[in-house]
């Protein structure tokens, strides 16, 4: 909410007046006249309080997105065979390291820096060309140095120019102010109050998770070193430009009277709306995964032998952590602690819940049982699909998106067996398909009143397509923009990923040798074991072994052993009858059988060995049982031992 809580703020400000001016208390100073808070003072205090709220929320949201990485590692790690669990989790965790560094060094500058190359993407009504940026680059943002984060002030600028700040002319002051504004333009991200580093960290988590998502496609078969090289290249040449196209803003206003600074990236200029990264993150990762596996070989034995997931427990826990982290992913994408963050949070919850139910329901009907993996997959599909739409759609829209994504992705993951490609963990089936569905449904379900309320901004600043009267969303034009964004992400992601994967595969090799694959990635790539799977038994009586020449006799005749000998029928016939009696049946077994069975130890020839029970009674029961089964007379007698 952009509205102020005036009472609280005035109280804060009043407190600062009382305690924050120690000079007024010095004895030699004459008592200062009581200071009256001006409108500017209140505005300053209000903005500071609001900025603190934004910073607090986005710090938390960034950490939440980071938690999605271990979540994804568990989600993927549980689905692979036991021998590959570490290798698979390391694919995700390695991204934290590699992209974590790349992002600070150059990734942020490429994604959010000022336009380095731009193209004309359309014309205004007056025929002026509209420019859209293809890639960003600001040298100040390379390495996120202090000059970009700290900026400067007028005094420092005047001093730097060799002027005395006290005696500067108005002209010189104006010159300095201009220079200050230019040098301080990176201090906060455009249209927000977020300090540069915070925006960089928040967006950096997105870059990290996107490359990690791809690893699900080619899990269980790639070399770790090649993978590390791949994600470094991919995030630089695929992710960074895509993020720039959709999310970058001009760091300064085109005209000082503009309410906000305008989008810089060409897809943003074209009015494609993508709240938290359906296009940049999920479509890009999904399509890249698909292209990679079309180039790389399949896993040995794919579709011929069964690949048994090692732990649905890890997968379910991982899915839960993804859900939790996604509140930061979507809610944080508001970039304010405002009602839009709340609305994004809400639909994230609703879509994930609905999609998990949808997938589980379809599976229940189709396969007869609801599975844990189905539930986990469904909720992830729902989260993927709501990502571009959160902040734009109502909970009702989220239910539609959740239901459709759960159902569609359920069928999408079965495509791989029909078409024969080996998408190990369904990176394309869930992130690609779910992402595309979400991006398109965003254009169909966007609610303008909700966006206006959430952002608290004037209608002209709506990033999507409005009708001419600026009263409602132009759904036709909006859908066009959405398809354009989807198409751009698919084509660019596919082409560049294809080149990268082929380059690595045909030089240093991307996939492991079959022997290394057979041994498992844990051992062959990391020299470790993910799970120690020795016998998991440590049960039994805590008894002290003692030497014995004979087994002890059992107390209460419990252990008394004897043999019932049957005569008058061949042993073969006896065995046939006995086997038949022991088979599980619908009807209850005969009384005689029930009496004998608990005591019987072994059947050998025509001898029935017993432990416990009354020998005389056993003898009679055995006789009665076999006589009724064989329809002939038999003799029985008891032998001891």
């Amino acid at each position: 909410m952009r509205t102020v809580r005036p009472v609280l703020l005035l109280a804060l400000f009043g407190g600062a007046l009382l305690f924050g001016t120690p000079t007024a208390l010095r004895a030699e100073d004459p008592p200062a006249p009581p200071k009256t808070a001006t409108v500017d003072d209140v505005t300053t205090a209000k903005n500071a309080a609001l900025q603190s709220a934004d910073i607090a929320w986005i710090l938390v949201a960034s950490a939440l997105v980071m938690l999605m990485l271990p979540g994804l590692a568990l989600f993927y790690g549980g689905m692979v065979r036991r021998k590959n669990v570490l290798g698979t989790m390391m694919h995700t965790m390695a991204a934290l390291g590699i992209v974590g560094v790349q992002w600070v060094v150059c990734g942020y500058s490429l994604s959010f820096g000022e336009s380095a190359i731009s193209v004309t993407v359309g014309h205004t009504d007056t025929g002026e060309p509209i420019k859209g940026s293809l890639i960003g680059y600001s040298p100040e943002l390379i390495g996120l140095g202090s000059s970009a984060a700290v900026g400067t002030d007028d005094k420092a600028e005047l001093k730097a120019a060799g002027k005395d700040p006290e005696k500067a002319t108005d002209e010189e002051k104006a010159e300095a102010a201009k220079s200050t504004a230019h040098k301080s333009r990176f201090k906060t991200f455009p249209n927000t109050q977020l300090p540069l580093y915070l925006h960089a960290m928040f967006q950096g988590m997105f870059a990290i998770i996107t490359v990690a998502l791809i690893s699900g496609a080619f899990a269980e078969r790639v070399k770790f070193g090649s993978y590390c090289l791949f994600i470094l290249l991919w995030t630089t040449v695929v992710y960074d430009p895509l993020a720039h196209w959709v999310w970058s803003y001009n760091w300064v206003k085109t005209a000082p009277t503009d309410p906000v600074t305008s989008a810089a990236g060409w897809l943003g200029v074209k009015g494609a709306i993508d709240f938290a990264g359906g296009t940049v993150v999920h479509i890009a990762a999904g399509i890249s995964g698909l292209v990679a596996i079309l180039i790389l070989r399949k896993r040995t034995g794919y579709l011929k032998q069964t690949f048994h997931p090692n732990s649905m427990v890890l997968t379910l826990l991982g899915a839960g952590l993804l859900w939790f982290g996604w509140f930061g992913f979507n809610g944080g994408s508001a970039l304010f602690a405002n009602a839009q963050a709340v609305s994004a949070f809400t639909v994230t919850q609703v879509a994930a819940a609905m999609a998990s139910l949808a997938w589980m329901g379809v599976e229940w009907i189709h396969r007869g049982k609801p599975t844990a993996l189905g539930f986990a997959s469904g909720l992830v599909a729902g989260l993927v699909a709501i990502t571009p739409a959160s902040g734009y759609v109502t909970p009702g829209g989220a239910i539609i998106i959740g239901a459709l994504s759960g159902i569609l992705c359920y069928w999408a993951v079965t495509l791989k067996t029909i078409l024969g490609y080996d998408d190990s963990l369904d990176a394309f089936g869930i992130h690609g398909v779910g992402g595309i569905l979400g991006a398109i449904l965003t254009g169909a379900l966007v609610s303008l009143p909700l966006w206006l309320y959430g952002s608290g901004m004037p209608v002209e600043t709506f990033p999507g397509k409005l009708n001419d009267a600026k009263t409602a969303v132009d759904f036709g034009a909006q859908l066009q923009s959405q398809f354009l964004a989807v198409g751009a992400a698919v084509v660019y992601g596919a082409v560049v990923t294809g080149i990268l994967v082929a380059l690595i595969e045909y030089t240093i090799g991307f996939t492991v040798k079959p022997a290394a694959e057979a041994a498992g990635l844990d051992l062959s790539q990391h020299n470790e074991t993910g799970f120690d799977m020795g016998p998991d038994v440590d049960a039994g009586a805590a008894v002290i072994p003692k030497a014995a020449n004979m087994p002890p006799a059992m107390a209460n005749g419990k252990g008394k052993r004897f043999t019932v000998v049957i005569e008058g029928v061949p042993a073969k016939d006896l065995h046939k009858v006995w086997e038949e009696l022991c088979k599980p049946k619908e009807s209850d077994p005969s009384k005689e059988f029930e009496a004998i069975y608990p005591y019987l130890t072994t059947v050998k020839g025509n001898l029935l060995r017993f432990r416990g029970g009354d020998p005389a009674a056993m003898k009679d029961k055995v006789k009665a049982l076999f006589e009724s089964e064989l329809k002939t007379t038999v003799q029985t007698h008891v032998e001891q031992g």
Partner: protein
Amino acid sequence: MKLIVAIIRPEKLDEVQQALAERDVYLMTVTDVRGCGRQRGYTEVYRGQEVQTRLIPKLKIEIAVNEAFVEATVEAIVHAARSSGTGAIGDGKIFVLALEDAVRIRTGESGPAAIGP
């Protein structure tokens, strides 16, 4: 001397060990194994893909015993490892093998003396 190899349901280990201890049989080797017998496997479904499992987890117990204990050992395992009621397919099997010799590594004792505790 005999080597008794028993395949049992994993959850029956505790009862079997108790029963053996009552007969002064303490020493054994227990291994996690998988096997298939008359108990049919089961089918799992992961994202619509059927995963057939024919090999079912069991425990293998190996016990070397002197002749006097063979009967008692087999009897103890049969009664303890059998499913309650009238048994069930998958309760397992016991194999009794002739054992040529046994050597206790620490002392070098061999033959029947090397078997007991």
